[in-house]
């Protein structure tokens, strides 16, 4: 199994509080991604990173920020959590980047279930 650890695995928080989710990898993969999974929507890309301090927005980036200060860590922050951000969050890693003939497999963490009350 790919070495990807997400923490925490479960979190309950209140509306308006900041929340940070962590993704840690031991594979030295260049690309890291944060997705959210909601019923009826599949997985939607929030942000991704293509190297240390190099990040970009995905399909549903509003209300989220990310940071990558080391190859192995990719942090997702909800500055002020809202109930619409209740979801399951998955981190993924890959050797190659986006689109076209990129053919490397994505490996996923176990997910973080976040509830915003």
């Amino acid at each position, binding site marked *: 199994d790919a070495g990807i650890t997400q923490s925490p695995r479960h979190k309950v928080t209140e509306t308006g509080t900041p929340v940070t989710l962590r993704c840690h990898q031991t594979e030295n993969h260049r690309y890291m991604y944060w997705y959210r999974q909601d019923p009826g929507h599949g*997985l939607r890309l929030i942000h991704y990173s293509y190297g240390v301090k190099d990040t970009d927005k995905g399909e549903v980036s509003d209300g989220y920020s990310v940071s990558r200060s080391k190859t192995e860590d990719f942090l997702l922050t909800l500055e002020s959590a809202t109930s619409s951000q209740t979801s*399951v969050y998955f981190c993924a890693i890959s050797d190659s980047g986006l*689109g*076209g003939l*990129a*053919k*490397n497999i994505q490996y996923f963490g176990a997910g973080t279930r976040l509830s915003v009350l």
Partner: protein
Amino acid sequence: AQKVTQAQTEISVVEKEDVTLDCVYETRDTTYYLFWYKQPPSGELVFLIRRNSFDEQNEISGRYSWNFQKSTSSFNFTITASQVVDSAVYFCAPPNLFFGTGTRLTVIP
């Protein structure tokens, strides 16, 4: 714009039946890879199979087979002799970009 469509929301089959999952990928790209991932009830996402767009020949890997029809941009993924352990949500995805909404497969013993 690129779009992935998995029109089958839920499928139920009886064990040992064959089942085909459909995925249509609309894109202006002419060459690309498409991926299938499986999410069993335990929740983890696992890579299953990768297929390119420039080879229409069927591929077979164990009980899985894979067919691409260029004329319709349709990727069909078939599980032969389904088993209860195949019960999961199956996602179709272009490389590292976005996912289809998934097809929930239930295999009834």
